[in-house]
């Protein structure tokens, strides 16, 4: 183990104080959780800027200061590659997946699979997505352990257990609103902390010129060598991160999806995503990588100050310790990074709870009140934390966090990514083809893992095969290809017509088998018994997959080709897209058992709104970001201009103050 960086009690007081402050900040907002909808999705109320900043903490945390500082120290500015290759899939996301997720009101990604295919495909998707998220949580814990290892000098797993207990307690009581607000604060702090390291580092070196000239041209190139070395090359990372990783992050990261579902409208979600990728990701990449660049420059300019024996994953901590002359600043930076990692882990734990509650628990334990599900979600959060810690051992076998993460993305994401992608964008993608993507795709991926030279080799773009960790990154191309090929091929073989025939045939075989065993001995003894038992059993399984399979009509609103229908279903009638004004109004209570708002006739005209349209009302203070807001429906108008009549349930849900005016926006 590296030497321990010595710290005084002041350092630890600041660390504990920072955590207490951040957790207290989030917990304050946890009071806005009224039900499971709030716990998981924050009541779909927030403005884009609030969500985009909260995504920074999740993204930066998960892609971690440690991981990128290590690669930045080793390979230079090309450590930025992974943050700067996300735009290619943005059209698919902004105008495909995001509106589908929002308008269909799906509660989880497996929920989408049930609507798009059927219940059994949902089960396959649930297994895959839980595996993905638990792995992600484990990587988060491992990163956190490695951040604190050189500071505490404790055993890595002791640190991970302590961190897991704190994270588990926090998310169990906080929920999504707490996570969003914690991440909002963290987003600002992280950008500031990263920028501070850069400024202090440049100052430590003696100026930008010294920093720039200390680094060779090769180090300053923004993209890595095309296919060398095997543990860090452009083409492998493009397929692993730019394709599998980007699609995985945008399309199947339940935590991120839940953030977008917490925005007040699809357009706000689009703004949050675009702003994040265009501006905050380039900033984030500098923030997370610069410690590695500064470290490299220090090792050239003042080699006597640099401890060349440190592990790569400890470069960040070493640089932070060197460039911050004050222990208080060092403590602040370490606290910010550690708390960011906590945010990432918390988001994922919350997402696991959402999947387990909505996809497994609720279908089994039906008709309970919301408090029951909320309590169950808290226990599941604790369970997910525990599983995450147990899974850490697998990822600890990789030389660096970067490679562990790369292998994880290359292996876990392709089947789900392809199934989601073809499901959204290809109408002909059938239920049996989706099953084949998971089953046949996973089998071919397993074969690729077993015979990498023979199967992944043809896709390697000239990358050398490392015999210990063969094709960590470029395997993403092979895995994506085999899953895509399985999905496409089986869609042509098992068309909808074929699926109907299979359903009829298998149902007939199952019925014959049932009839046979009802008149014969249940013990399987004769050849005929074996035939009915084996073939009947197989047909029963196949039948469960083709039964209730999607038809052209049932695809309304859940593929990109029928999005208008999705909007119509979301509203319950034809959307009204006529542009209108956003008046400021005072509110009054109108007692009723139903839920609605009533504006004056004049203001309805100003807003170009009709009775039955959807409206969003928020506290007029924009800086609240929609925290105090509510969605409702326009009821019959009145004649009192400047006043909106609202039913008590809406006032309670929006937490509106009597002396505060509201801003009204027609949604559709």
């Amino acid at each position, binding site marked *: 183990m590296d030497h321990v960086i010595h710290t005084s009690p002041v350092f630890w007081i600041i660390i504990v104080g920072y955590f207490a402050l951040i957790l207290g900040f989030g917990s304050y907002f946890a009071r806005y959780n009224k039900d499971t909808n709030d716990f998981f999705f924050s009541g779909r109320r927030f403005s884009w800027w609030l969500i985009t900043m909260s995504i920074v903490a999740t993204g930066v945390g998960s892609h971690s200061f440690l991981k990128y500082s290590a690669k930045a120290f080793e390979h230079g*500015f090309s450590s930025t590659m992974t943050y*700067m*290759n996300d*735009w*290619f*899939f*943005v*059209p*698919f996301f*902004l*105008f*495909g997946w995001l*509106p589908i997720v929002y308008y269909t009101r799906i509660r989880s990604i497996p929920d989408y699979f049930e609507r798009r295919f059927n219940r059994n495909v949902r089960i396959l998707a649930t297994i895959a997505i839980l595996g993905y998220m638990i792995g992600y949580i484990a990587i988060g814990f491992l990163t956190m352990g490695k951040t604190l290892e050189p500071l505490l000098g404790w055993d890595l797993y002791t640190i991970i257990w302590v961190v897991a207990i704190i994270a588990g307690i926090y998310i169990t009581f906080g929920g999504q609103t707490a996570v969003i607000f914690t991440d909002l604060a963290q987003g600002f702090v992280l950008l500031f902390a990263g920028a501070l390291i850069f400024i202090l580092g440049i100052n430590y070196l003696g100026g930008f010129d010294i920093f*720039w000239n200390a680094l*060779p*041209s*090769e180090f*300053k*190139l*923004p*993209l*890595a*060598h*095309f*296919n*060398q070395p095997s543990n860090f090359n*452009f*083409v492998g990372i*493009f397929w692993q991160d*730019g*394709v599998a990783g980007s699609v995985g992050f945008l399309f199947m990261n339940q935590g991120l999806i839940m953030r977008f579902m917490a925005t007040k409208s699809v*357009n706000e979600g*689009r703004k949050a995503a*675009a702003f994040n*990728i*265009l501006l905050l990701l*380039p900033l984030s990449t500098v923030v997370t990588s610069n410690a590695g660049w500064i470290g490299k420059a220090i090792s050239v300019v003042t080699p006597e100050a640099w401890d060349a024996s440190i592990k790569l994953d400890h470069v960040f901590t070493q640089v932070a310790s060197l460039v911050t002359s004050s222990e208080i600043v060092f403590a602040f930076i370490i606290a910010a990074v550690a708390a960011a990692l906590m945010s990432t882990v918390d988001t994922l734990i919350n997402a696991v709870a959402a999947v387990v509650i909505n996809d497994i628990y609720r279908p089994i334990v039906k008709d309970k009140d919301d408090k029951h599900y909320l309590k169950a979600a808290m226990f599941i959060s604790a369970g997910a934390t525990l599983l995450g810690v147990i899974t850490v051992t697998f990822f600890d076998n990789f030389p660096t966090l970067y490679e562990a993460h790369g292998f994880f993305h290359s292996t876990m994401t392709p089947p789900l990514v392809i199934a989601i992608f073809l499901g959204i*964008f290809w109408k002909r993608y059938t239920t049996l083809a989706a099953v084949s993507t998971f089953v046949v795709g996973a089998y071919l991926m397993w074969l690729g893992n077993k015979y990498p030279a023979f199967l992944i080799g043809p896709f390697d773009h000239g990358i050398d095969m490392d015999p210990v960790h063969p094709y960590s990154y470029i395997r993403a191309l092979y895995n994506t290809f085999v899953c895509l090929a399985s999905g496409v091929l089986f869609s042509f073989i098992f068309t909808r017509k074929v699926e109907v025939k299979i359903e009829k045939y298998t149902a007939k075989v199952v019925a014959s088998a049932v009839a046979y065993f009802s008149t014969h001995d249940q013990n399987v003894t004769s050849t005929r018994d074996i035939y009915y038992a084996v073939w009947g059993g197989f047909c029963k399984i196949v039948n469960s997959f083709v039964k209730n399979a999607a038809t052209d009509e049932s695809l309304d609103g859940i593929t*990109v*080709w029928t*999005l*208008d229908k999705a909007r119509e279903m979301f509203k319950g009638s034809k959307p009204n*897209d006529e*542009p209108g004004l956003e008046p400021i109004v005072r509110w009054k209570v109108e007692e009723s058992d139903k839920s609605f708002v009533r504006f004056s006739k004049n203001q309805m005209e100003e807003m170009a709104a009709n009775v039955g349209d959807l409206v969003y009302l928020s506290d007029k203070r924009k800086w609240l970001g929609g925290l105090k807001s509510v969605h409702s429906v326009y009821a019959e108008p009145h004649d009192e201009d400047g006043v909106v009549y609202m039913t008590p349930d809406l006032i309670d849900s929006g937490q509106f103050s009597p002396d505060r005016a509201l801003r009204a926006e027609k949604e559709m």
Partner: protein
Amino acid sequence: MHELSFFRTWLPVIYLYGVGGIIFFGGMFIIFKAKTIKPERLLHKRWIKVLYFGFFYYLALHVFLTYAALNF
């Protein structure tokens, strides 16, 4: 200073925006064809501009950074 090879300098940029470009413009084609983006709507017209801007913004950024690394 040793000469950096094409594999180290410009090939990654070409590959990134060649293959990435196929994905990006393929995505644009699909959302136009599916009519989920409607150029006749003012809001969507702005989004079309943002989408193209994003692609060329990142392309310009990578070209600039590569050029700066090699020449400054």
